[in-house]
């Protein structure tokens, strides 16, 4: 008989305590951010899709030597590099860098394996598109745009 009343009392007390906790949170300010009117600044190391590092000193604007290490190391095969060796020049020149972001898993092996540190992660997070082609990036063109 005693335990019956004790059970009711303990149960009721736990319910009231719970109500008190939610009331305390109800009157406190909210912790959410009203996106898209307020945005968050991305951390410096945030992993967006990769981009060629813009190098003002180089003639081509980037540090890539078209060795193909990133293409070989990528587990998903997202990177396609086109290069050519102009007449009389000693080194290859990068003519096209195609990143298929639909397959990328942001592992960072390309950035790590580049011998000249020509790749970096961008801070792009606001990517929304209607077609798969929206996610195929031409990194050489993006680097040219940053030159301007």
């Amino acid at each position: 008989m005693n335990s019956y009343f004790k059970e009711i009392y303990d149960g009721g007390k736990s319910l009231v305590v719970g109500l008190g906790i939610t009331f305390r949170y109800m009157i406190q300010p909210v912790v959410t951010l009203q996106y898209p009117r307020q945005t968050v600044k991305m951390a410096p190391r945030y992993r967006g899709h990769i981009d060629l590092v813009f190098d003002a000193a180089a003639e081509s604007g980037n540090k890539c030597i078209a060795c193909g290490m990133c293409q070989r190391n990528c587990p998903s095969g997202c990177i396609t590099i086109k290069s050519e060796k102009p007449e009389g020049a000693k080194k290859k020149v990068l003519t096209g860098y195609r990143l298929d972001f639909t397959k990328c898993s942001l592992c960072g092996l390309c950035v790590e394996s580049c011998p000249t540190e020509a790749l970096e992660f961008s801070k792009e997070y606001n990517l929304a598109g209607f077609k798969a082609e929206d996610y195929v990036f031409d990194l050489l063109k993006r680097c040219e745009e940053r030159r301007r």
Partner: protein
Amino acid sequence: MSELPEIFRVWFFVAGIMALVGLNAAFSVWLERKVSGHIQRRIGPKEVGPYGIIQPIADGIKLMTKQLVVPAKADPLLYRLAPALTMITAVMVFVVIPFGPALVAVDLNIGLLLIFAISSVNVLALLMGGWGSNNKYAVISATRAVSQNIAYEVPMLITVVTMVMISGSMNLNTIVGQQQNLLQWYIFPWNGSILLPVSFLIFFVCAMAETNRAPFDLGEAESELVAGFHTEYGGMGFGLFFLGEYGHVFVGCALASILFLGGWQCPLGLLPGIHWMLLKTYLLVYVVMWIRWTYPRTTIYGLLNLSWKVMVPFSLAILVLTAAMLKVF
């Protein structure tokens, strides 16, 4: 009011009650979303109108423009009648609720009995909706809801009988008239029986369980049974269930405020009127919503045990005690 022909009075109340039910649903939806938002440390709707006040209208328009799909093997009459029946019972009960000193549609001497008689038909609507949908999930949840509703009607009625004993009449307007200032409210223990606050608590919990509100919402358990008895309803069918549920919540809270908190009377006896009634009712509705967003769902056995093993003995004990005290004092 009494000089005008009766037909004007009838039309006034019909229009008023339909408007009240619609506005109540809209306001309750907005209040629920705001309350749940702030409990969860976010703001609720804010885009549509200032503080999201027009959001329920946008929701209503969305529900009305959806296609009404009837499942192929559903029972044609039961499936279509169930949401309408929920709505009908909710609206019919508004007829006897006194909103102000002279604002009651029909001043029935057995008003309290009418309310409970009609609300019981709500159980039938749930069962019809679940069975008519031809869906296993819906049938399971409808049977759960029926056993829950029947179990919680008993303590509610016993508590109401206690209140009728104390006030001496079943006419709701009379009951409100007897609670003129704050000290005469029936929730306080010195007004009839010493356990009256417990009575209020029992009534409030039973009202929540009757309307299938969390933590007693086994009928529409969202994460176990997809959506319970209204799984197969979309568009306005779901909208009608929704409206009916909020209507029943309003009626339950209005009844609690009439029986225990003084209805349209002001605590200090100054300006009685409909505003006090609405204020008290919506305060209780707010508490119902606050409770919904705090607790998890009970099990079916926990629910039935609470009713038969705790609520019924307590309400019977209070009934006997009240009778004894009324006889002695």
